[in-house]
């Protein structure tokens, strides 16, 4: 195919950048998610480190051209290690006035602003609430503004295809992508391949593939020929750990991790769910993997889903349920049953903005206390959290491992940000993952006093092993027939028991079992200083921002150390000791302060919170600023570096 080669041409100067943040925005109908996704893949395949932030409108479609209808996709790509999609935007591509209006504030002063000039008509300007056309009134003078009549140019270049106006109109995102590819000297190949795969192979619409590929190339050539841009930009390859990579979103990684966990345990996976934003994609992904013996049950509601998981677990499957927001609240009673029956289930909570229905498409980290405390009575669960899209895979495997090892529910916390966001993911090798050992008893395990003879003659479902876990005999096993249920159970026999001392003992045991998990927690890693002024304690999807902020603080010479928790209940056993090595403890969270409640309670340390509840991730800059304000003395001498 006759695609442009990515050699640097002579007509333009070239600038080499360490990295850049680009955001595509436009109407929901403008295909910005696809555009951003393609740019990301292309950059990743090229060898950049990348991080993305897709920002959808609320679940329901808003009228075209309006502010609530704006869809955005931000990608940060760099030749260095990056961990967030970036605070501020270097290049903003706005396909319509509404997109410009809602996104301009994030563009850096002097940043590149590419707009589809054709979309700035009266109708659209009015819908976006512009009294005058911002392209003409000088209000954008602080930016490098490129007004491109994208709609018209795209139309002209596709006229010869003879395709309908609607189809041609839809291709303008690829035209735009072509322009941006030119600007950043990217190859068109990966996108051409993807368009061919998608339209020609999957949907059998070669004409649509052709149309989009033409648009893409037309945009690229426009950049090359139009002499519009003074300069092109080069973002060289990053030095990444060697190995095979792919882009992965958190929800997909969770789905793959669950399949992998079940495989490692040599068992089948049952995932019982009920659609809800932003957890639904886990259900969608898994339902496509039937040939991996994955059973997906879309139940009638979230309560049914957790109960179906309990049923599947009793029967011996690796049983998982997942949801978000109110859907998780509904599972509380069911989780209680799993705690009492001591059956392993995994509950995936893709956290979203709340309370109540809240901001369903936005991210938040505000379900931690619910995870730890949100059930009636003493009802402890193991709680772990994933830190990034790719990490969801490991966390899902770990959740299955812990649930089956301790015979108890595990809550896995992810969030909308990492669930929808994607990052390059170094592929794990299945052969290198530790198998999950599960044994279902097939013989009696105890000797009942009443019965005569020697040797075991009964099955006690609540006998415990060294991890305090009970045995997991499954239906179909001759002679081990037994009943479980939500009433308090007598230790060993598992019979219903109202005995006060037995109740105390069982409450203690269920708690002790969860606390045993400390034996599985590896020594805590500290980023930066091992002792000093400030210890940052983070958890979950804020990893990227906190990690980057820590780097920046360290670069400025601050004595900062950072710990990012996977294990929340129980906490790592060495955490207290680490805390004592720092003067101040700071806990940044996308909530009003939740992990900090547990840290303060547990370690009696006057930890301080950095909290934000805006449905959005932390900016690195706001973290740095707030932490610096807390530091005993600004290290001016080194900050000047």
């Amino acid at each position, binding site marked *: 195919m006759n695609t442009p080669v990515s050699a640097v041409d002579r007509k333009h100067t070239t600038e080499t950048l360490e990295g850049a943040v680009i955001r595509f925005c436009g109407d929901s109908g403008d295909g910005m998610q696809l555009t951003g996704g393609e740019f990301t893949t292309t950059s990743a395949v090229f060898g950049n480190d990348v991080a993305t932030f897709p920002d959808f409108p609320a679940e329901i479609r808003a009228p075209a051209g309006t502010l609530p209808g704006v869809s955005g996709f931000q990608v940060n790509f760099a030749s260095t290690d990056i961990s967030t999609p970036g605070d501020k935007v270097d290049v903003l591509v706005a396909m319509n006035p509404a997109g410009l209006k809602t996104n301009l504030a994030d563009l850096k002063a002097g940043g590149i602003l590419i707009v589809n000039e054709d979309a700035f008509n009266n109708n659209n300007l009015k819908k976006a609430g512009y009294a005058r056309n911002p392209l003409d009134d000088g209000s954008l003078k602080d930016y490098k503004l490129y007004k491109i009549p994208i709609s018209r140019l795209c139309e002209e270049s596709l006229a010869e295809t003879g395709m309908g106006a609607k189809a041609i109109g839809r291709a303008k995102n690829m035209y735009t992508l072509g322009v941006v590819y030119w600007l950043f000297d990217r190859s068109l190949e990966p996108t051409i391949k993807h368009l061919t795969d998608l339209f020609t192979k999957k949907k059998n619409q070669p004409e649509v593939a052709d149309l989009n590929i033409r648009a893409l190339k037309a945009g690229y050539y426009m950049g090359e020929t139009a002499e519009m841009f003074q300069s092109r930009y080069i973002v060289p390859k990053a030095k990444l750990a060697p190995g095979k990579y792919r882009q992965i979103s958190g929800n997909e990684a969770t789905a793959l991790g669950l399949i992998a966990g079940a495989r490692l345990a040599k068992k089948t996976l*049952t995932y019982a769910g009920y659609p809800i934003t932003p957890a639904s994609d886990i259900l969608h992904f898994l339902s496509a993997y039937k040939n991996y013996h994955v059973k997906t049950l879309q139940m009638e509601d979230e309560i049914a889903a957790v109960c179906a998981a309990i049923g599947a677990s009793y029967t011996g499957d690796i049983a998982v349920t997942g949801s978000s927001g109110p859907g998780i609240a509904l599972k509380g009673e069911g989780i209680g049953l799993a705690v009492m029956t001591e059956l392993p289930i995994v509950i995936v909570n893709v956290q979203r903005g709340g309370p109540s229905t809240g901001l369903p498409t936005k991210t938040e980290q505000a379900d931690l206390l619910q995870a730890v405390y949100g059930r009636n009575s003493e009802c402890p669960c193991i709680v772990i959290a994933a830190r990034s899209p790719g990490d969801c895979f490991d966390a899902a495997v770990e959740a299955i491992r812990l649930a089956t090892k301790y015979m108890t529910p595990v809550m896995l916390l992810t969030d909308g940000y990492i669930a929808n966001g994607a990052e390059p993911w170094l592929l794990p090798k299945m052969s290198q993952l530790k198998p999950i050992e599960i044994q279902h008893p097939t013989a009696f395990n105890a000797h009942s006093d009443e019965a005569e003879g020697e040797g075991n003659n009964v099955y006690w479902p609540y006998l415990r092993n060294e991890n305090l876990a009970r045995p997991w005999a499954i239906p179909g096993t001759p002679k081990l027939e037994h009943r479980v249920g939500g009433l308090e159970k007598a230790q060993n026999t598992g019979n219903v028991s109202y005995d006060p001392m037995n109740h105390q003992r069982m409450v203690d045991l269920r708690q002790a079992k969860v606390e045993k998990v400390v034996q599985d927690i590896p020594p805590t890693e500290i980023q930066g200083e091992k002792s000093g002024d400030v210890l940052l304690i983070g958890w979950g999807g804020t990893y990227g921002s906190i990690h980057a902020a820590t780097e920046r603080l360290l670069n400025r010479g601050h004595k900062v150390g950072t710990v990012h928790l996977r294990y929340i209940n129980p906490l790592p056993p060495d955490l207290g000791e680490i805390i004592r090595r720092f003067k101040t403890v700071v806990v940044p969270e996308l909530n009003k302060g939740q992990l900090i409640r547990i840290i303060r309670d547990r370690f009696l340390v006057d930890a301080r919170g950095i909290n934000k509840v805006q449905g959005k991730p932390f900016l690195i800059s706001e973290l740095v600023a707030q932490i610096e304000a807390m530091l005993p003395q600004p290290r001016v001498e080194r900050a000047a570096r």
Partner: protein
Amino acid sequence: MTQIELPKYSAKDFATDQEVRWCPGCGDYAILAAVRKVLPDLNHRKENYVFVSGIGCSSRFPYYMGTYGVHGIHGRAPAIATGIKSANPNLDVWLVTGDGDGLSIGGNHLIHMLRRNVNIKVLLFNNRIYGLTKGQYSPTSLTGHRTKSTPLGSIDHPIHPISFALGVEATFVARCTDVNKGGLNVLPDVLKAAADHRGSAFVEIYQDCNVFNHQAFFYATEKDTARETTVLLEHGKPLIFGANRDKGIRFNSTRLEVVSLENVKEDDLLFHDETDPALAFLLSRMHHTQGLPEPVGVFYRVNKPCYEDMLTEQIEKSIAQRGEGDLEKLLNSGSTWTVSE
């Protein structure tokens, strides 16, 4: 699976060492005895039975069966049972529930299990009262019923379990009574028919709560009235009832009426057709208070694919088409790239 020789079971094999803790005189005892007695005849392995329940007096049932069992949470047994059956379609899953557990808090789960046609046998013990919580009205309590929570009488219109099941696409719908002193011994036959049905089987059992709603169904179970107030449904047979089998049911335009066999020929009576949902629905509206006997036996029975079979089939088909899933491959799917040392 190779068929290993089945042990000969007796009712005793299905008992447990746990003391049965229902009130003396409770109708639940008769049902328990009947189930324990019927199971040995069904030729299934004991270790393959799972009894699942919610919460209620009736829901204590699994504790008294020497099989696998889950005493669940209130109303959620159908969801738990669906999980069990999907995880292992070879199991024989029975669900025991009450009018409160199954039709109040758990109504929705029951609906969806029935319409999905998961191959589970549902025994709904209808005593028209909340027994375990000591006597509040239930969704099947009659309007005006005075209970602890309705001292001036219930103002709700009761649900008819049979109409309910038919309205939500159940494929097997039947009714019987805990005891029957009128000579018709329907319970064991219905249990067997339910067991034989491949799909969800819904069985309403009129059950006497000896303490909080005593004698609610005595019209249908006692010697002197049972044959007058109930009529046995038999596929392809006319609806005849009465202690002397001297009365029948006949269509009168679209409604039903009782006729004397002295005046009307058997051939002119209504003949039961288990496969007709509208007829089943019509039969489900018969009330002894309106002078019509209440049908017992199988109202409705049709074959439809069941959930776990289709689930298995999709998995098998998918494997046949795409090959046994290879995780290493899956991980490597999508656009990948390699960073070299």
